[in-house]
């Protein structure tokens, strides 16, 4: 499978199809080829009718993810139960360290997200190490860089720089998404690679890998999870025929 750069997070409102259409049109105009959509509202499964409708609307390769914002371990336990053999990408975002550790250990969780500026400050080497063992993905976002105030922007650059380098040093799988709220902040992933390289000090080859190869690995992880439903040596028989 050869795909070009990915935008790994774009928030859309699934109740408002015009919003999706407008955002997809702009992404197409920018030349984005692969996009991972995330519902704004608290949907836990994306209906297949919407998926096919979105698929017909655009030439972009669309993938889906669900992001859970959790406050405590009990909440995590209660809500993660619905995601056994989940067919899309599942990400967890939490300020609570216990939740982060559980998410990093749980094979159902594909991404532990540190996109939010408050959340990014809670990232620890312990969580990174657990994620590395579980082969899950660590997510950062460049959205905090798109602020007007110079002082805040500078602070955000510093925080992102610090934690991205902590992750890179430990060689954990990581993805850097745009996650922009305003459509005028949308940028092509190639532009984001340049920002990562020049302003966040990520080597160019590594930055390209983060935007190109890592999302493919993430999708393969999801695919593998679905294929693992049937134990090896067990064959599906339908109407007497071996499939």
């Amino acid at each position, binding site marked *: 499978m050869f795909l070009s750069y990915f935008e790994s997070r774009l928030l859309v409102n699934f109740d408002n199809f015009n919003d999706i259409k407008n955002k997809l049109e702009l992404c197409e105009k920018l030349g984005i080829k692969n996009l991972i959509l995330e519902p704004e509202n608290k949907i836990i499964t994306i209906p297949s009718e919407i998926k096919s409708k979105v698929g017909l609307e655009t030439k972009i390769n669309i993938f889906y993810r669900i992001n859970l914002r959790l406050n405590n371990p009990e909440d995590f336990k209660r809500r993660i139960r619905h995601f056994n053999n989940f067919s899309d990408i599942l990400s967890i975002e939490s300020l609570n360290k216990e939740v982060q550790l559980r998410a990093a250990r749980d094979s159902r969780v594909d991404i532990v997200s540190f996109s939010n500026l408050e959340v990014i400050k809670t990232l620890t080497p312990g969580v990174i190490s657990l994620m590395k063992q579980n082969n899950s993905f660590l997510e950062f976002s460049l959205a905090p860089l798109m602020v007007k105030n110079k002082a805040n922007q500078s602070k955000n650059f510093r925080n992102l720089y610090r934690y991205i380098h902590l992750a890179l040093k430990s060689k954990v799988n990581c993805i850097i998404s745009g996650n922009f709220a305003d459509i*005028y902040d949308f*940028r*092509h992933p*190639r*532009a984001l690679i340049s*920002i990562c*390289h020049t302003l966040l000090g990520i080597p160019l080859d590594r930055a390209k890998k983060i935007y190109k190869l890592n999302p493919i690995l993430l999708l393969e992880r999801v695919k593998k999870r679905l294929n693992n439903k049937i134990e090896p040596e067990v064959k599906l028989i339908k109407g007497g025929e071996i499939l």
Partner: protein
Amino acid sequence: MNLTQNSLLKSIWHSIWRYFGLKEANKIGLWLIELNLDEDYGIIRCSHQTKETIISALSLVREINGIKVILSPLKTSGTIRSIKSAK
């Protein structure tokens, strides 16, 4: 105020100064070869060593004269002739 060649260049330089400072700005050799606002594209010439810098600076421009804009890279090339033929 509308988007003009001057205002665009001013914003790009402002972005270069803001994010990269004098040390990078003097290496760029920025030149706006063409700007076609009807078809929404422009051609910028810069030193090949500062390609990433200029792409970052362009990406971080968010508005020009109060108009929200997106400056996104379409194609990079080693020669002006090939970039003109790619239009």
